[in-house]
């Protein structure tokens, strides 16, 4: 996939991309180390919270309720941000958002613009759109500097450069950054080189772009959670700040932050709290940017909202806990998903943002339905259930042509059963008693009854897509 194309247009089906990823042993080692480390840390900081499940329930309830009245909350947000001195823009899709941001910057004759890592801007391919207008976006997160200067794509929501080791990073920096003749591959040294390069930029470039972790409708406050301080630099030094947020990022009240300030850091970087959280409302005399723009982006989100069984997808606070726990992700890495959003969340979000038929149709099959992603999700998105729902949709979309295809039949049946708890319970019971295979044909003859319970479901998955099965069988070679 080219670096500058929008980050949700999937060009290759998952199995093919995954096969390539599996051949890259360095990538596998790095991803394995990353996911294992974060997984263990996360477990510890979650275990010390006696009310973790209550927090998850609250996170879910707030998100669900917000989404069910999204129009109201967005209008309230627009009013409060405007009252605080900001300007609110609405963008139907990525192209419109990119054009707006480009217009604002062009109006200031900007040649460069600072950026805080943002999945949303990656999703819409903002960097490429700005470059095309002669405005150079400067990524300021260390990992994004590594990715951008390495002319590369991110491989993890949280640690985008996890596929690069220190020797590779040294090579990239020596090639791309000033004053790096004597650079060693010590992480301290590498970080210092980035600090020197970026400090100069922070002090001289008066424009910045950010995403948003949350925006509070009641107060017009936008919140950014980060570790390095590049976010604070971009939010406080420039004269003009543009924040782009998906419409699902709004929360109704400031008090709701008490849940997310606990859920996000522990689920994400596995810390009790990440080093810096910034909250600001509009503009303020003598403090921070003089001009603040908030872009509210739809780009397919209202379609996700319309599909009731998949609506919870929009609860996602992009913590990446589901990536770190996922056995499929651990082996393939993020780039195999071909999208800004990898791992389990990507497997449900990306296909909903790519109109079928598309290579993204293979993503809902990139899972063993083990359920671990649901257990760690701080906002309780039932990813396995949504995966099955989407598989059913993919199969249905294939239409009459494949009506007699055993795979299609199984998937459609599975989807129906999974979507109906009563049917699922019944089927589970029946299978447990008799191991009754309810469909037999060429595609699945080696398998036991497809409804023989959760563990059997894991083995079942490969039949969904022959090529995925091949991949699955080949995974240990």
């Amino acid at each position: 996939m080219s670096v500058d194309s929008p980050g949700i247009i999937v060009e290759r089906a998952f199995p093919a991309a995954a096969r390539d990823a599996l051949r890259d042993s360095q990538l596998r080692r790095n991803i394995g180390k990353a996911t294992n480390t974060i997984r263990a840390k996360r477990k510890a900081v979650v275990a010390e919270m006696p009310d973790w499940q209550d927090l998850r329930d609250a996170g879910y309830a707030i998100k669900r309720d917000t989404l069910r009245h999204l129009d109201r909350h967005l209008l309230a947000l627009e009013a409060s941000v405007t009252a605080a001195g900001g300007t609110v823009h609405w963008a139907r899709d990525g192209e419109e958002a990119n054009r707006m941001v480009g217009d604002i910057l062009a109006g200031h004759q900007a040649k460069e613009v600072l950026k805080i890592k943002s999945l949303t801007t990656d999703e819409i391919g903002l960097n490429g759109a700005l470059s095309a207008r002669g405005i150079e976006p400067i990524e300021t997160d260390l990992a994004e500097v590594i990715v951008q200067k390495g002319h590369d794509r991110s491989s993890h929501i949280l640690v985008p450069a996890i596929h690069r080791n220190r020797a590779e990073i040294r090579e990239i920096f020596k090639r791309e950054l000033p004053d790096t003749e004597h650079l060693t591959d010590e992480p301290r040294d590498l970080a210092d080189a980035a600090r020197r390069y970026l400090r100069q930029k922070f002090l001289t470039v008066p424009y910045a772009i950010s995403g948003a972790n949350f925006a509070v409708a009641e107060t017009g406050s936008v919140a950014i959670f980060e570790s390095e301080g590049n976010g604070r630099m971009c939010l406080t030094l420039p004269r003009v700040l543009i924040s782009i947020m998906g419409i699902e990022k709004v929360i109704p009240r400031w008090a709701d932050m008490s849940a997310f300030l606990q859920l996000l850091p522990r689920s994400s970087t596995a810390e009790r709290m990440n080093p810096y959280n910034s909250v600001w409302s509009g503009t303020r005399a003598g403090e921070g940017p003089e001009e603040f723009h908030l872009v509210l982006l739809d780009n397919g989100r209202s379609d996700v909202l319309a599909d009731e069984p998949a609506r919870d997808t929009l609860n996602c606070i992009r913590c990446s806990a589901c990536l770190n726990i996922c056995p499929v992700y651990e082996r393939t890495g993020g780039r195999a998903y071909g999208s800004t959003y990898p791992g389990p969340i990507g497997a449900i979000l990306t296909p909903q943002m790519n109109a079928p038929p598309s290579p993204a149709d293979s993503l809902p099959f990139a899972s063993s339905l083990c359920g671990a992603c649901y257990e760690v999700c701080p906002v309780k998105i039932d990813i396995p259930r949504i995966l099955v729902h989407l598989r059913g949709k993919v199969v249905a979309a294939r239409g009459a042509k494949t009506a007699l295809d055993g795979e299609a039949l199984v998937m459609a049946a599975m989807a129906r059963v999974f979507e109906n708890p009563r049917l699922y319970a019944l089927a589970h019971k029946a299978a447990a008693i008799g191991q009754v295979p309810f469909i037999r044909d060429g595609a699945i003859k080696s398998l036991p009854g497809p409804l023989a319970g959760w563990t059997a479901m894991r083995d079942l998955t490969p039949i969904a897509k022959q090529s995925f099965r091949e991949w699955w069988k080949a995974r240990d070679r």
Partner: protein
Amino acid sequence: MTSAKDTILGRIRQALVDVPETEAGPEAWRFRQRSTEDHSALLDRFTERARGYKVRVERATRAEAPARAARILAEAGLVRLALPADFPVDLAPEGFDLLRDDGLDNATIAACDGVLTTCACAIAETGTLVLDHGVGQGRRKLTLLPDYHLCFVEASAILGLVPEAVERMQPSVAAGRPLTFISGPSATSDIELNRVEGVHGPRTLVVVILDEAFPNETETH
């Protein structure tokens, strides 16, 4: 032509036709709202958690605090320090080149060896300082550009849990003030997951708790 706003709101309303007009909001939260620990336990917890982020934490009475701060700052070899314009006079340490922020430019702030501030409150459970950039706390960039930040925290402003701090900050947020939550020095784990302190923000964070109840607390690190 329909505006983007109308189109998006229209799509959203169309998508939500299944949602009843009058629907009850979420149930009351069950997660902890108040810590049950006594205040001295909270101070200990804050100290332990902040130290977990490699923050140096000390306790001193208010009268003793400037001298204590002076010793810490001198040890670190700092000379020029930035202060918010309204930094409390009685907390300013002697023997340093103190620069009050009456609108200093970025380069001047960045050229300071360190910065001294107070904070609005702190959270024991997470070892977090919360600044609402009110009196004694300065503009946001003041605590960002210098490489060293020493923060005075009133013992009484150390709260137990995150929800207590969120509640305490409600009036500030409602008044349009920005907030900065600080949990340890700036850090990254982007290179092979090795933690490196101080990528952009201050590499060193020191907290002096102003506590009349511990006049004889010995200096600890």
